[in-house]
C-alpha cells in the first residue's frame, strides 16, 4: 500500500513539474531570435531524445542481466524500458518535423544524421516490441527478446557513424542546440530534462509492475487449470 502512496505522490509532483515546465517554456524562456516561437518545441524534443537513449541503454542492461540470471524482473525491466523508449522516440519523430517544416522549409530530409539515427533506432526498437508481442511470453521468446535488446544497443553506434559519414552536409547552426544557449533557456531546458526523466521513471515503474503482475496471474491461472483438471 505504501508503494501505491509513493507512486501517487510522485505522480502529483511530476504533474506539477510539467505544468511549471510548460509555463516556463512559454512565459519565462526568451523567444529565439532567428527561429522565433517554433524553437520552443526544442525543450520537449531534445528532452525526449535524451530520455529514449537512456531507455534503450536500460533495455540492454536488463537484457544482459536477464540472460545471465534468468530472473523475470530483468526481462520486465528491459521490456518496459523499450516500450517507454519507443514512445519517447515517436515523440521525437513527431516534434522534429513540426520544428523542421518552418525552419528547414521541409518536414523531412534524408541526409540529416540525427534524424536518420532517430529513425534507425525507432525501427530497431519497434521491431523489438513487435517481436516481443508476437513471440508470446514463453522462455524461448524472452531469451530472443534479450538478444534483440543487446544487438539493438550494439547497432546504435553503428547507425550513428553510418549516418554521420553519410550526411555531414547539414549546417550545424541550424540545429538550434550546442554551447551557445542563453542561461534562462538552459535552466528551463534542465527542468524539462528532469521532468522527462521523471516521467520515464514513473512509466517504467508502472509498466514493470504490470508485466510482473501479468506473469504472476499466468502462473495462478495455470495452477487453477491443472487443479480443476
Amino acid at each position, binding site marked *: 500500500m505504501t508503494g501505491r502512496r509513493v507512486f501517487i505522490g510522485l505522480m502529483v509532483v511530476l504533474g506539477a513539474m510539467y505544468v511549471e515546465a510548460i509555463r516556463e517554456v512559454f512565459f519565462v524562456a526568451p523567444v529565439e531570435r532567428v527561429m522565433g516561437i517554433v524553437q520552443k518545441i526544442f525543450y520537449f524534443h531534445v528532452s525526449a531524445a535524451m530520455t529514449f537513449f537512456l531507455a534503450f541503454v536500460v533495455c540492454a542492461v536488463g537484457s544482459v542481466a536477464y*540472460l*545471465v540470471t534468468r530472473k523475470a524482473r530483468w526481462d520486465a525491466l528491459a521490456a518496459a524500458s523499450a516500450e517507454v523508449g519507443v514512445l519517447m522516440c515517436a515523440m521525437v519523430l513527431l516534434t522534429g518535423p513540426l520544428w523542421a517544416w518552418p525552419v528547414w522549409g521541409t518536414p523531412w530530409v534524408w541526409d540529416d544524421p540525427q534524424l536518420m539515427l532517430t529513425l*534507425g533506432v525507432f*525501427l*530497431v526498437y*519497434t*521491431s*523489438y516490441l*513487435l*517481436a516481443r508481442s*508476437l*513471440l508470446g511470453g514463453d*522462455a*524461448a*521468446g524472452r*531469451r*530472443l527478446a*534479450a*538478444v*534483440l535488446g*543487446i*544487438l*539493438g544497443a*550494439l*547497432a546504435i553506434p*553503428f*547507425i550513428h*557513424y*553510418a*549516418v554521420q*559519414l*553519410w550526411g555531414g552536409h547539414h549546417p550545424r547552426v541550424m540545429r538550434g542546440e550546442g554551447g551557445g544557449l542563453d542561461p534562462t533557456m538552459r535552466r528551463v531546458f534542465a527542468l524539462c530534462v528532469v521532468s522527462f526523466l521523471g516521467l520515464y521513471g514513473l512509466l517504467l515503474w508502472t509498466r514493470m509492475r504490470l508485466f510482473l503482475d501479468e506473469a504472476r496471474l499466468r502462473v495462478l491461472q495455470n495452477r487453477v487449470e491443472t487443479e480443476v483438471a
Partner: protein
Amino acid sequence: MQQLGVLLWKDLRLELRSREVVYTSVFFALLVTVISGFAFLRHAGAGEKVAPGILWIALTFSGTLGMNRTFGREREDGCLQGVLLAPVPRPAVFLGKLVANFVFMATAAAAMMPLVALFFEPRLFAHGGGIGLCLALGTLGFAAVGTLLSAGLSKARLRHVLLPIVMYPLTLPAVISGVMATTSILAPGPDAAAQARAWLVLLGGYDVVFLAAAIFLFDPLVRE
C-alpha cells in the same frame, strides 16, 4: 575445428543434394532485380544511379529467404536438440551454421552480381574486386545476425514473418555502408576512393562486433 568442419559439411552436403536454398535464393534475387528494373527504369541511363541499391536489395531479400531454412531442417524430428546435445562446443555449432549460410548467400550474390551488372551497370565488372569485397563483408554481417536470430526463432510459430522484421533494422548499418561503399567504388576520383575505404572500414567494424556478439550470445540464446 574438426567438429565445426563436420557440422558444416553436413549442411553443405544436404544442400548439395537438395539445392533448395541456393536455387530459390538465386531465382528470388533474379526476380527482385527484374522487378526493380521495371520499377525504377523507364528511361535509359538511370541504371548507374540505382544499380548499387538494386544489388543490395536483392542481396538482403534473397538472404532472408535462405536464412529461414537454416534451422528449418534441424527442427524436423528434433534434430536441433540432437546437435545441441552432442558434445560439441556451442560456438562450433553456431559457426558451422554461419559458414553454411555465408556460402549459400555468397553463391547467390556471385550469381546476381553479373546479372545486375548486365542489366544496369556494366562498370560493376571493371570494379569486380572492390564490389566483391563489399558484398562479402555485407554477406558476413548479414549471415552472423541472421543465423543467430533464426536460431532464436526456430521454434516460434511466426518465425518466417518475424525473421525479416527483426533482422532488417539490426542490419541497417551494414546495408547503409554496403550501398555507400559500392556507390563510392563506382564513383571516379581519389576522394571517392577515400570514401569507399571509410565505408568498408565501417562495414568491417560492424562485422567484427556483430560476429563476436553472435558467437557470445548463441549459447545463452539456445540454452534452456
